[in-house]
């Protein structure tokens, strides 16, 4: 009877457009700055340090206070609670006191009638500094042994002995730059004072719970006095995981002190100067291999610039270590990781969370080996892949049980005609003196789960109202990635109602408490499962009610397409709900989920930190101009594994967007700090993310046909971060293009750094 019913609208495993798409395009999707301003609203601007490392001998804010429109100026002395907005280490002051630790650090807040007045006033501070020596670069920090925590090491086998025995050995060093998130909506928070000294905070944050807790600590009130709300962000990418607390706390403090709503909308330049970025890395390798290119031993040194404070750097650098195997078996390996403390802004989460930097290390090594042996780099990659039943233990001791890299890579190479195109490129290069092409295939294997165990949990809350309409809430936040629509699909599928019956609502700490940040690609995995649990509870209650009320055995009750089939009877979902309400059934439920199987010992860096892996591979074809170093991506072919996708259209969007963002990181996006520690590229005029013209004219994206082996939400896989690393193919191809151009002139593969700007490429051409 139910077999032939059509599926509901908005079912799982279907292309459903973003839930807010129709509002995005009409300009009617509200972001925080679009909320109508209260009449007496104050605008908050932060005063910044103009030194990288110094003691403030005096801080004279008289002119700031006297400036037109200024209502209040606040410094560290005005904080009733803790002067800290750090995720856990306690080392990110809301307002620096006495000592400033990076150029751009927040020192005070000024609240004024207009934003313009606040911005102008903030520039009037008179600060007398006594400069301290500043450690600015990775090399400076390494020399001074300046770290945010002790160096960490992951080890498997005996790399020292293996390297000694290896017939061929290569050493090298290269650098990988950082990356600004450049979410289109800058950091923003608005705080409204409530009775009892409470505050309601709208924050553009991936981490409402952390904002809530930090604001409470700053105000010295319990967590229950602060509610944090976010309907959507105009992009996050990791940049709104820890940094929003700074602006939210400043706005909340002003709101508390003045009794007026306060908004802190950060100017783009200030945003780029004051908030952390992707960590830049220095990578040193010493690799031994045989004549076929098989790695026998590897000694890898990863040093990253963490900035002045801890932030999330320990976990980010751990993830870098855990991804420097990528898809390859490293029997004898030592990975030493140095987390450098510098007098620069504290670097933070960014899509991939250290994974990309670890992965690019091993991909460079593959190219180095292939170059040394004059082999096709793809052959070297294939021979080093993890095995299915043996050669499948990662350096951190996890057995890989879901390895699909070999067949995925083979399929991509076949469909994208890798071998023939390599030949065509050789022919092109022979015929052309001033332009050179290259092609590269690189794979991705990305571990899914937070490495901090406790974060792998989620909650959801579902109400069914008596008319049958559904209200859905969970701890995950929407930053464009399509989390809300995916979770709504899960609920629609479970309750078998059309998706437009489900109201997607803002993430709010008073609905679902103690949520984890929406990060680590885990949004749908965690919140989808939690929402599923909540929906199941409600469905079970409705089923139990129907069993009684309609006198039908529960095994004959089927929810299908907005209806409930009870033996021969059929009633609408709305009818059942209404009856259930009259029958005094609770129509509200929470749901909870925690990821199974994972465990991990940070002392030894051993365990199973990841529930499963997401895979993918990309082929990039690039061209470089030998006279100018300019370069271009001509064609890209991607095959990516998202398990059994909840929403293939959304997933494709993540793949393409992630790839282009990764390509920007590795080509044109250059963060330039000067010798005083001042960020010189702090606006889109000087910091260049890809435009539409940088997208390769030919770009093919296919989804791998497979399901997740693990029991994830409807067998799907996480997709947020992994595709970014597909762009390593671009950097690899550029490295090979330089090698092609230098052929006969260079024995070693050139150590092309990232980003591979035109200047960087020209500098490597002989």
């Amino acid at each position, binding site marked *: 009877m139910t077999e032939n019913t059509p599926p509901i609208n908005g079912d799982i495993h279907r292309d459903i457009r973003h839930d807010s798409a129709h509002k995005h395009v009409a*300009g009617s999707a509200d972001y925080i700055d679009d909320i109508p301003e209260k009449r007496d609203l104050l605008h908050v601007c932060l005063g910044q340090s103009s030194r990288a490392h110094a003691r403030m001998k005096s801080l004279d804010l008289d002119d700031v206070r006297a400036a037109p429109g200024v209502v209040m100026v606040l410094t560290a002395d005005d904080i009733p609670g803790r002067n800290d907005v750090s995720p856990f280490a306690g080392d990110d002051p809301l307002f620096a006191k006495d000592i400033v630790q990076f150029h751009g650090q927040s020192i005070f807040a000024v609240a004024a009638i207009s934003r313009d007045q606040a911005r102008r006033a903030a520039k009037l501070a008179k600060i007398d500094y006594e400069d301290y020596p500043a450690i600015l670069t990775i090399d400076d920090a390494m020399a001074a042994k300046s770290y945010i925590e002790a160096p960490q090491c992951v080890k498997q086998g005996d790399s020292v002995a293996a390297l000694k025995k290896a017939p061929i050995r290569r050493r090298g060093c290269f650098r990988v730059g950082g990356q600004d998130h450049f979410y289109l909506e800058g950091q923003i928070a608005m705080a409204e004072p409530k009775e009892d000294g409470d505050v309601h905070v709208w924050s553009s944050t991936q981490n409402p719970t952390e904002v809530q807790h930090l604001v409470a600590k700053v105000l010295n009130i319990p967590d229950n006095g602060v509610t944090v709300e976010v309907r959507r962000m105009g992009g996050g990418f990791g940049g709104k995981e820890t940094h929003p607390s700074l602006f939210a706390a400043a706005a909340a403090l002003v709101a508390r002190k003045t009794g007026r709503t306060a908004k802190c909308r950060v100017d783009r330049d200030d945003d780029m100067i004051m908030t952390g970025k992707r960590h830049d890395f220095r990578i040193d390798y010493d690799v031994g291999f045989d004549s076929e290119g098989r790695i026998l031993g590897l000694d890898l040194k990863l040093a990253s610039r963490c900035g002045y404070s801890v932030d999330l750097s320990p976990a980010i650098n751990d993830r870098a270590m855990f991804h420097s195997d990528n898809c390859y078996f490293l029997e004898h390996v030592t990975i030493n990781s140095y987390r450098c403390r510098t007098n620069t802004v504290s670097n933070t989460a960014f899509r991939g969370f250290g994974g990309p930097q670890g992965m690019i290390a091993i991909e460079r090594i593959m190219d180095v080996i292939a170059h040394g042996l004059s082999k096709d780099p793809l052959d070297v990659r294939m021979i080093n892949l993890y095995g299915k039943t043996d050669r499948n233990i990662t350096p951190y001791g996890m057995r890989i049980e879901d390895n699909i890299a070999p067949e995925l890579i083979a399929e991509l190479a076949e469909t994208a005609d890798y071998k023939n195109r390599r030949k065509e490129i050789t022919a092109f290069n022979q015929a052309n003196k001033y332009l050179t092409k290259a092609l590269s295939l690189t794979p991705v294997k990305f571990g899914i789960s937070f490495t901090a165990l406790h974060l792998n949990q989620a909650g959801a809350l579902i109400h069914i109202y008596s008319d049958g309409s559904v209200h859905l809430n969970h701890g995950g936040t929407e930053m464009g990635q399509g989390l809300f629509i995916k979770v709504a699909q899960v609920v629609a599928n479970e309750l078998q109602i059309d998706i437009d019956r489900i109201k997607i609502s803002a993430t709010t700490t008073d609905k679902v408490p103690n949520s984890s940040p929406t990060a680590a690609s885990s949004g749908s995995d965690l919140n989808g499962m939690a929402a599923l649990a909540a929906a199941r509870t409600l469905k079970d209650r409705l089923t139990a009610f129907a069993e009684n009320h309609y006198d039908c055995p529960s095994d004959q009750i089927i929810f299908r397409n907005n209806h409930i089939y009870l033996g021969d009877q059929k009633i609408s979902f709305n009818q059942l709900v209404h009856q259930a309400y009259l029958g005094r059934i609770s129509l509200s439920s929470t749901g909870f989920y925690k990821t199974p199987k994972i465990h991990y010992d940070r002392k030894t860096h051993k365990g199973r930190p990841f529930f499963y892996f997401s895979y993918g591979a990309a082929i990039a074809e690039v061209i470089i101009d030998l006279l100018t170093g300019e370069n271009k991506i*001509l064609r890209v072919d991607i095959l990516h594994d998202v398990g059994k996708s909840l929403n293939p259209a959304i997933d494709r969007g993540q793949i393409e967007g992630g790839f282009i963002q990764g390509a920007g990181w590795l080509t044109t996006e250059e963060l330039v700090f000067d010798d005083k520690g001042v960020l010189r590229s702090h606006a889109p005029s000087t910091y260049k993310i890809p435009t539409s*013209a940088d997208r390769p004219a030919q770009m093919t994206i296919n989804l791998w046909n497979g399901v997740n082996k693990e029991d994830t939400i409807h067998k799907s896989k996480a997709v947020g971060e992994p595709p970014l690393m597909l762009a390593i193919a671009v950097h690899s191809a550029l490295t090979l293009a330089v090698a092609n151009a230098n052929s006969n002139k260079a024995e070693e593969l050139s150590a092309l750094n990232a980003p591979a700007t035109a200047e960087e490429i020209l500098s490597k051409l002989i």
Partner: protein
Amino acid sequence: MAQKNITLLLGGQPHEVINFDPTRTLLDYLRYDSARTGTKEGCGEGDCGACTVVIGTLKDGKLRFEAVNSCIIFLPTLDGKLLLTVEDLVHPDGSLHVIQRVIADLQGSQCGFCTPGFVMAIFAHIRSGGGAGLASINDALVGNLCRCTGYGPIIEAVRRAISEQVDDHLTALEETWIKQLAAMSSPDTLSLSWICPDTGKERHYSAPKTTAALTALYAAYPEATLLAGGTDVGLWVTKQLQSLNRLIYLGHITELSQITQSKTHIEIGAGVTFADAQPILSAHFPDLGEVIRRLGSSQIRNRATIGGNIANGSPIGDSMPVLIALNTELALQSVKGLRRIPLEDYFISYGRQDRIAGEFVAAIRIPLPKPDQYFRAYKISKRFDQDISAVCGAISVTLDDGLISSARVAYGGVAATPIRALNTENTLIGAKWNERTIQSAMSALKNDLSPISDMRASADYRLKVARNILFKAYIEYDTPLSQTRLIGDGAAE
């Protein structure tokens, strides 16, 4: 008599703005004074396109739609214009405009913050007859940054919107708008004044309609800030927080926006935008056209004027080196009359130009290309589109039977002003046009250039690439069949 108000068609409806700060940006006015929050701010400096709106101007009796960056446009420049924002595209019955619908359907929005800007840029592209080819679409879109989508679905949406193009509810209103705009135009200078409550100072804005009125006004107030497209001046306010208390706007002076061509030269008024100058300049000098194609974005080129680019005197402005190589003459005007100087003589030193009080840039004059003239120009920047040059270089030589009879070589980005490379020119003039000569010209270049290192490039790279583009110019002549370009016409694929 100073007025207090301006009139525009906001969303197509006559709308007055009364007693306001003349340096209030259009974006702030829309978002905070008009509850039109669909238009977003992503950067406040013209570089991201989130604030894109469309201005309709009456030109030769027709409506012309242009995408612009509302974040760096001062509100009074909207006087007598039609203004459309993302909200206006939605049909009165609430249904989406075809452009909005296809973007939504094709997953062209993720976080959605960039989306309204894209919608408006695409609207302007389609309404001004823009094509469905990839290059044409990209030229219309590079001023809009999207950090989420990777652009593919948006590009596809443009194609789809063009192929589906149906008349929207706005088309029917155009006739009325044309009449209304015609009725709004006035030959008199618009003068506004406003008292800044913070400083108590009066802030003035005047928009003369004729050169004569401008000349008189500027003579009376030589300390005034001339405002053309405002793509530099706008940022003085939004980023440097300057208080500009007397503005003279040039955008309503038709005489300054004339392009004429004689037998010997092209004359372009200082107020001509790059968008308007591009067709004629690319027809005669394809590489100049290509440099202009890459100058800013379509939003910027719709506002930025050649006069502003030159007057600003920035060492990294793109038009100057190319125009200098083309032997361009600059016309400057004041109450004392008109004088003409070689463009290169205008730039005295960093931040200093040859302009007396009350004098403004009136026009440039570019000699038409001659049959024996060989000309090339190259813009080198970190990103191809919408980026300030690290180096912009141009060479123009006259070849007489294999001998170089005259040469002009000019660069931007390699000294404190745009410069002519005289030593280099001297090694070329009289020599044979061959690789040896080019090599010696390349070595001479170091005596002409004094590049610095900054966030765009190192001094070293600037010098190296300045040399190499000379070589490139040579090989493009010597072996015209060899592939040398990654972008633009004839790019390798």
